[in-house]
């Protein structure tokens, strides 16, 4: 009676759609014929349902697991505001500064869009730093999530390059001299340094051509980051999230469906995050910018104090902590790159710092070292600030290169719980029972799975 394509009971062979592969469309009862029709051709509904509705998520995730979603929200804001800024921006040395002034003063609502873009950069880095330290603290990078960790680190590096290129675009004094300092740093590499810098900036000095390049780079990287986030999330959904106990999910008693439990938990975080975001945009727009960047780039006069954006400050502090130019550069790059190796530097099989008394202390010191470096990067490298930046740099490398490999052997971990469900649920629910009729949960045949476990 019904159109064969829309009937859920018609064998696939009769629909003319090949059946040699497992069907991608896996909708349970309760979906209408139109949804089924679409889903059989492009299984977007199945996909969303599988990955964001019934997706089994450890039931004990805390609020630190919000920060990936928060970074995603900030990234979305950056891309959206970025597109609208690009519409009004002129990427030439002669026109860039004036076009940014025009965005702030003449383009309708241009000031909100620009302010949101600037605050967005800070919000995304703030979210990423918490996200990364969360992963370090709970050992989220360990087997089987090493590739997930690598895609995350790739994102962090891409984000840094994008933020740097973007900072050059307004063509103010800080833009120009920031770009100069980075070019100078690249030039100081032995051998390839100078040719590399010339090749990057398209000439012997920073000028119109350089600005064009940075504009293209900034624009393209924003979308490449989006693509890398997709890889990151695919890798995440292959293994599933880790959790504060750092033990893997052993069965349905350890998980909750993503929706509504984590959609609502993420929503709370997003609302708070957006409030903080809005406060920055509307009440503290001057916090995140430097007055010198409202003076047009002048190649013949350097501002008295070149301070980086706060999110680069920790690595800037490492750069200045050593008196050697090349040494500072290598250490600074190394302080980020060392993170890529963390899954192989850490020798302990225990994931979560909750069960690793020594690692837990080391992690807290690492956070302190990071915050100290951040503060040092915003102050002149002299006196106490120089001393502190040296101590913190030392600890940063000590932590990753010495403590991580050694602690695995030295430390006696605390006893791990048997399962996620046991310490979290009241005893009645933690033991498997078959009684009752509570919330009707979709999805199929789980019962045997438990008996097997």
């Amino acid at each position, binding site marked *: 009676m019904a159109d064969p394509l829309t009937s859920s009971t018609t064998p696939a062979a009769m629909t003319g759609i090949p059946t040699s592969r497992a069907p991608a469309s896996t909708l349970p009862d309760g979906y209408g014929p139109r949804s089924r029709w679409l889903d059989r051709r492009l299984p977007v509904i199945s996909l969303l349902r599988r990955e964001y509705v019934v997706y*089994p998520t450890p039931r004990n995730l805390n609020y630190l697991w919000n920060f990936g979603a928060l970074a995603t929200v900030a990234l979305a804001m950056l891309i959206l505001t970025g597109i609208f800024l690009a519409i009004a921006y002129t990427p030439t040395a002669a026109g860039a500064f004036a076009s940014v002034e025009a965005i702030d003063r003449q383009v309708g609502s*241009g000031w909100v869009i620009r302010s949101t873009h600037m605050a967005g950069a800070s919000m995304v880095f703030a979210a990423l730093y918490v996200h990364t330290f969360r992963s370090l603290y709970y050992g989220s990078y360990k087997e089987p999530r090493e590739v997930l960790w690598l895609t995350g680190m790739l994102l962090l590096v891409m984000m840094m390059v994008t933020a740097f290129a973007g900072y050059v675009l307004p063509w103010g004094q800080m833009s120009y001299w920031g770009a100069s300092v980075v070019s100078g740093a690249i030039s100081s590499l032995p051998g390839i340094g100078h040719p590399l810098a010339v090749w990057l900036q398209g000439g012997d000095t920073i000028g119109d051509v350089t600005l064009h390049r940075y504009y293209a780079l900034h624009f393209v990287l924003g979308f490449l980051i989006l693509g890398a986030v997709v890889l990151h999330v695919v890798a995440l959904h292959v293994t*599933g999230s880790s959790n504060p106990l750092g033990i893997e999910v052993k069965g349905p*008693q350890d998980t909750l*469906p993503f929706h509504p439990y984590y959609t609502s938990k993420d929503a709370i975080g997003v609302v708070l995050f957006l409030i903080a975001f809005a406060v920055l945009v509307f009440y503290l727009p001057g916090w995140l910018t430097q007055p010198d960047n409202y003076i047009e780039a002048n190649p013949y006069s350097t501002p008295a104090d070149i301070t980086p954006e706060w999110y680069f400050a920790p690595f800037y502090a490492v750069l200045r902590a050593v008196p050697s130019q090349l040494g500072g550069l290598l250490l600074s790059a190394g302080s980020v790159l060392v993170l890529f190796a963390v899954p192989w530097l850490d020798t302990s099989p225990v994931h979560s710092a909750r069960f690793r008394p020594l690692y837990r202390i080391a992690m807290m010191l690492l956070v302190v070292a990071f915050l100290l470096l951040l503060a040092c990067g915003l102050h002149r490298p002299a006196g106490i600030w120089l001393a502190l930046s040296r101590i913190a740099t030392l600890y940063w490398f000590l932590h990753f290169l010495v403590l991580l490999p050694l602690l695995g052997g030295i430390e006696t971990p605390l006893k791990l719980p048997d399962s996620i469900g046991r310490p979290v649920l009241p005893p009645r629910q933690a033991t498997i029972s078959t009684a009752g009729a*509570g919330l009707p*949960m979709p*999805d199929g045949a789980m019962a045997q799975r438990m008996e097997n476990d």
Partner: protein
Amino acid sequence: MAVQTDPQTAGPAPSGPDFSGPDFSGHDSHGHHPESGPRRDFLTLLTGAAAVIGAGAFAFPFLDSLAPVGGPDAADATVDVDLSKIAPGQQIVVVWRGKPVFVVHRTPKALLGLQDTNLTDRLRDWASRERQQPDYVVNWHRSIAPEYGVMVGICTHLGCVPGYVPNPSATDPVANWPGGYACPCHGSKFDLAGRVFQGAPAQYNLPVPPYSMPTRSSLRIGLSPDDLDFDFSTIRQL
């Protein structure tokens, strides 16, 4: 420790409260199913409404930023012209709000011609009845000072820029040509006051922009004389 890699098999059980989350069945004192009670419906509605309003407010700045901005082409731009540099019989073209504006210095002979009934009989709208100019230039010369004509040089047929053909001719571009403008595109003709000739496709006189004369020898295009006003967007045909 087994690694759980297949989300499908790790999913919650099809029924049974134990794996599917906290049991809320005791929470609703009115006996409603927690997923469909009026309270839940109300909260869903409220959340949805807040989201819609929020999305609208959020969209506003983005759409607003696409609106036109100030600058030489803006709707309130003015252009000053020094008339002392234009010889009798000469015309200059200035750009005002992105459009060409003809400023012509008419000779006394040309001014006599504009009032000749042999000419006005050949025009569609010799008395400037259509709203193609500010009220303060509705007169036989369509301007403030008779010797200076000011009009937007865009043909009212399909928008080409008419050519300046000031000298009378018995044959060219048409028989008994008194001097004026000839459009290269489809042959529309206008006299030296921008009034359109019959027998050609354009229906309306060339528009006259709002302008004023701060001195006897200067124009300010875009600004009407004091205590007069004209909104250029209200003309009949550009």
